[in-house]
């Protein structure tokens, strides 16, 4: 028996593709749009047999009653969602907002750093700081100019924006730490830094600010299951001990985080995940062949 409450409640209103691996979903959930605060995340199940995956709330619109997710297709679930989650379809489950909201404090000058997809989750924090009256310096980094997204949207909440690309095809050549160095040089009075992106980027971002003693908050993305503190799958190692990212975080002081531990634990289901992705690709491939074959059949008639 299907329990009520699940299924078909969470309609995808908008879908936007930033690149062939990054896409945006705007989902209807008025109550969540009202409750969401910067730094929080949701857990999504796209269909009843799916995995529960955590995704940051990249934006929320209280008037429209929607939340926005920006997703990078990295494995089975996120690729399958890329294929299936189109405007007008529904998510099977959507729960949140989860996690302790980011602390938008008294800082007068903040550095908001987003690496790749991390630009999306750092956006609501940048906007929060801007609204709180801080001077916001944005640094965003991408592999190349084709992957750049939200430059205008992000720029609109920053007083200064530095775009970096690994290959120099847009903005500063180099990764975000290069942009951060430039910003810190120009503004020695930065009070706080927020850095979100892949773990290795956050690790180097934290190393960049450490010598300057700038408080640096990072948002950790360990593997999660429930998101309610019940399974401990999301535990992360800090100088002060073990914490559960879903209920004690996901924001932590980057200077205390053991990033090597995080990176190693992110790979703990890799073997199974790779098999699942391979199977998924196989099935997509078969489907494409089938579609192509049927098209051929049809054209013969």
């Amino acid at each position, binding site marked *: 028996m299907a*329990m009520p409450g699940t299924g078909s409640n969470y309609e995808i209103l908008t879908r936007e593709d930033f690149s062939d691996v990054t896409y945006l979903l705007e989902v209807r959930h008025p109550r969540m749009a009202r*409750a969401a605060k910067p730094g929080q995340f949701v857990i999504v199940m796209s269909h009843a047999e799916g995995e529960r995956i955590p995704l940051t709330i990249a934006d929320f619109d209280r008037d429209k009653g929607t939340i926005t997710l920006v997703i990078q297709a990295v494995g089975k679930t996120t690729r399958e969602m890329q294929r299936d989650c189109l405007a007008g379809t529904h998510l099977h489950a959507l729960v949140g*907002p*989860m996690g302790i909201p980011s602390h938008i404090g008294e800082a007068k000058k903040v550095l908001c750093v987003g690496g790749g997809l991390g630009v999306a989750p750092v956006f609501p924090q940048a906007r929060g700081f801007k609204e709180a009256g801080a001077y916001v310096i944005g640094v965003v980094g991408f592999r190349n100019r084709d992957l750049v997204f939200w430059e205008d949207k992000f720029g609109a909440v920053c007083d200064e924006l530095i775009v970096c690309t690994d290959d120099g095809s847009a903005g500063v050549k180099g990764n975000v730490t290069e942009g951060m160095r430039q910003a810190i040089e120009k503004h020695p009075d930065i009070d706080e830094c927020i850095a979100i992106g892949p773990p290795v980027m956050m690790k180097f971002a934290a190393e960049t600010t450490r010598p300057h003693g700038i408080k640096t908050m990072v948002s950790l993305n360990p593997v999660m299951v429930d998101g309610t*503190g019940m399974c401990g799958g999301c535990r992360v190692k800090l100088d002060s001990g073990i914490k559960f990212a879903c209920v004690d975080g996901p924001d932590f002081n980057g200077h205390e985080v053991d990033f090597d531990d995080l990176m190693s634990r992110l790979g703990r289901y890799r073997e199974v*995940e790779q098999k699942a992705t391979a199977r998924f690709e196989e099935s997509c491939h078969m489907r494409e062949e089938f579609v192509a074959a049927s098209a051929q059949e049809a054209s013969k008639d």
Partner: protein
Amino acid sequence: MALKKRTIRTIPQERTPVEELDPAERATNFLEVNCGYKLEEALRESERCLMCADEPCVRGCPVSIDIPSFIKKIGEKNFHGAYDVITNTNLLPAVCGRVCPQENQCEGVCTVADSLEPVAIGRLERFVGDMAIREGWSNIPYIEPSGFKVGIVGSGPAGMACAADMAKAGCDVTVYEAFHEAGGVLKYGIPDFRLPNSTVDAELAKLIELGIKFECNTLVGRLFTIEEMIQEMGFHAVFIGTGAGYPSFMGIPGESLNGVLSANELLTRCNLMHGRDPEHYDTPLPPSKNVAVIGAGNTAMDALRVSLRLGAGNVHCIYRRSHAEAPARAEEIHHAEEEGIQFHWLTNPVEILDDGKNNVRGMRCIRMELGEPDESGRRRPVVVPGSEFEFEADLVVYAIGTNANPILGQTSGLKLNKWGYIATDENLATSIAGVFAGGDIVTGAATVIEAMGAGRKAARGMKAWLGLRDTEESCLGEPAPFEDRLLGLDPAEHDFALVRLPRSAASSSNAS
């Protein structure tokens, strides 16, 4: 019918055995191990009850089920009557008959146990519960709406019990659950070979018939707060039954290696997320050949037996005390032994060993011996110097208990006790007026029956607080004969406002 007085010498001497799946075969599947009594078996076992006047078993039951009375009804083949007696106090007979630690409760104090094996009260209870599910019985009285709106946070046994009682008292009840399915530990924790999810769903369906609404995917505290429920959402009373959570680790070296996880994570992936069926479901399970589970409670037994069924060749149980102190139900330890779990009593983990690639290669443990009793009365294990040894393992599962879930503490003004659990008075009222709490989130990890009892106790407190008459005893043992009835109602019933949902409404919500 004049019953000849039974004595310990006249009753069947042997406890009626129950059919169980063959250990070797069942260790490869998730089918229920204990097949339950058949009719003749239940009848025979019912004859073993001495109908003691002092009813020690009733006092041994955390919710005081009238045990001799329901057993008597089984003997009279009045099974619906037996169901009525049980459900007067226990909402979930099919669940509790399966998972209660009867040996520490009713069966532990049964008079028969003084010289023979105790009456199999749990098996009889399950027999009645299963029959009720099969026959579609549910005691749904006519409910006069009271106009009160009650919110329940968490859909485990505590929340289910409180919801049922408040619905029977005519309240408009909504249950909020964070997961995408209701049932709490009964669903995500306890595996199907012990408690099939279909049994939990059948019990949940009865709650839906009572008019209770379930809203899953709702994380209370974060989506809305307890205070908002009272102040803005129009709830007159709220019950919190969010369960324990926050599994403990030991802090020994090697704990962050891949291949170390909590039993809750393993069980949730396997049960709720169906990771055991990778052909159809996406949630991965860690592949493992040699598994070590630390702990010897019910959670540990479940993790051990799940690992075996997932295909591990060697499954070890590591426990620092002895068999006698193991907190799991006796039946589970027995079943685990039959299935070939390797028990290492009086053994404590020292370190989890690394294969050089961040995976688990094995474990180093040390032998213990029992010393002086500690404050809990259990003999404290002490280290045997120089007894360290290593063995091979690629998965280490922690089942050593949980701490309080912090979410409601973080998001509300609720007063917590010094361990972070929600503080309540003796009626389970919390520090916020109209808000009650019970189950594992108040006591720390306990049992299904205690959580259910707490849900009902809180409902009693809630009814008093709302000024509702107590509708607890909805059916007395013997219904009044026709001539004693008033307009068809039994005057002995405490409550005339008993519920009868329009059949059409009940069946349509049933179908959803």
